C-alpha cells in the first residue's frame, strides 16, 4: 500500500511535492538532488498485474528502489514516480502496453530515501494463452548523452503540462 513519504526517511535537503497518482490520489513525495548511479552489469526487473500493482521484482530492483521487498510487492508501481517526470511519458507507456505493444523510454525514478536514478526501460505485455495477464519491465543502464537529451525533452513536456523541471540538468 502506497503512503506519503516521511522526512525521517530522507537524507539531506529536500523539496516537497504533492503528486496525483492514478487510482490512488495525492501522494506527498520528498525529493533530493542526489543521483544514485545505475549498478553496472545488472538488469532491474519488475512485473505488475494489469492494473500496475507490483507482483514480482528482482534483487536489483529492491536495492535501487530504497524500499524493502515487503513494501514493494502489492503496491502501485507509481511508488517510483518522480515529480520531474512528465505525466505524458506514462500515458504513452500505458497506451502502448494496453494496445499489446512494447514501450521503451528513459525514466527518472524516485527512491524511498528521496534520491533518484535514471534507467532505460522496456515494458512488454505478458501474454499467456492469448490473454494479457500483466506487464514486465526490464531496465538497463542509460548513457549520459541519452539522459541529457531526456532532460531537455522532459523540461519541454513539463512546461506544456504547466509545471516545471526542478532537478539537476546533467
Amino acid at each position, binding site marked *: 500500500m502506497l503512503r506519503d513519504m516521511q522526512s525521517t526517511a530522507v537524507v539531506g535537503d529536500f523539496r516537497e511535492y504533492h503528486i496525483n497518482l492514478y487510482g490512488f490520489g495525492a501522494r506527498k513525495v520528498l525529493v533530493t538532488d542526489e543521483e544514485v548511479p545505475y549498478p*553496472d*552489469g*545488472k538488469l532491474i526487473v519488475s512485473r505488475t498485474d494489469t492494473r500496475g500493482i507490483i507482483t514480482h521484482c528482482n534483487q536489483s530492483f529492491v536495492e535501487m528502489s530504497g524500499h524493502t521487498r515487503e513494501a514493494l510487492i502489492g503496491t502501485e508501481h507509481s511508488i517510483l514516480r518522480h515529480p520531474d517526470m512528465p505525466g505524458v511519458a506514462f500515458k504513452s507507456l500505458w497506451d502502448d502496453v494496453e494496445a499489446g505493444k512494447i514501450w521503451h523510454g528513459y525514466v527518472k525514478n524516485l527512491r524511498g530515501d528521496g534520491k533518484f536514478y535514471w534507467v532505460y526501460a522496456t515494458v512488454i505485455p505478458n501474454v*499467456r494463452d492469448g490473454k494479457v495477464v500483466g506487464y*514486465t519491465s526490464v531496465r538497463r543502464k*542509460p548513457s549520459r*548523452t541519452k539522459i541529457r537529451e531526456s532532460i531537455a525533452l522532459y523540461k519541454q513536456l513539463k512546461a506544456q503540462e504547466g509545471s516545471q523541471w526542478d532537478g539537476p540538468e546533467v
Partner: protein
Amino acid sequence: MGWAGGMNMETIYQLTVSPDFTPEHISGWYIYNTWLQRNLGLHFHLEMYDSFDAQREAIRQDKVDLIYANPYDASMLVREKGFRAVVRPIGVADECVIVVPADSPVQKVEDLQPNARVASTDDPDIHLVGMIMLEPADLNADNVQSITVDGYVLVAKALLKGSADVGFFLKDAWDGLSNTVRKQLRPLVTSQISDIQHVLLVGPRLMDSVEDIQGLMLRMPQIEKGAGVLEALGFEGWAEVDHEDTEFMIDLMDTLKAR
C-alpha cells in the same frame, strides 16, 4: 541385453545441444545420451551442430526432439515450435564479461568510442548481453565494427593481436583462459543477470514423455552413474523449470531483443 529389449526401436529421437558447449564437455554429452537412452528406454541420436544457424534450420525442419538450448532460442522453441522447458542446470551461469587489452586506455565502458572493434562469438545470448553493456557508451550495432570469431580463445587472440578493441566472453570461458593470457587482458564489467539460463526443452513428438524426462533429470544425482554424467557435463544437477518460469524468461529475453 536387458535394457535394449524395452526400447522402441522404430522411433529415433534427435537430441541436440546448444553449439556454445564448452569443448571439454563434448564427451559429456555423448555419455549423457547413452545414459538417457538406458534410463528412459527411448532411442536417441545425438546431433552436435557446429553453428547456431545450422541448429535453427534443423529446428525449423522439425528434426529436433530434445534440446539443451541457449536462452536466446527458447522463445522460438516454445512459442513457435511447441517445445516445453523441463529443467535448467545448477552450477552454471550465462554471464558475459566485457574485456579489453591490459594496456588499453579504456578504463570503463563509457571510455569506448564509436567504431570500436568488438570481438565476439556467435553465442546469441552473450552477444546480446554484451551489446547491452556497451549502451552506456552510446554504442550499438550501427556504430561498432563487429568481428565474429569461432570461439572464446579466438576472442582473446583478437584482443592480444590488437585486431579488436573490446571482446565479449562467456564468464566460464573467461575464467578458463590461462593465467598468461588473462594477465594481458583486463575485464571492465561482468553481467549479473541470474534470470537468463540455458534450459532443456522437450519437443512435440516427445510430449508423452515430458514427465518421465523431467523426473529422470531431477533424480539424476541419485541414479546409478548419474552423478558421474553430471560431472562430465560440468553441472551440479538439474532444477525444475515450470511453465511460468519459462514464459518469464522468454518475456525477459524479448525485452532485451527489442530495439
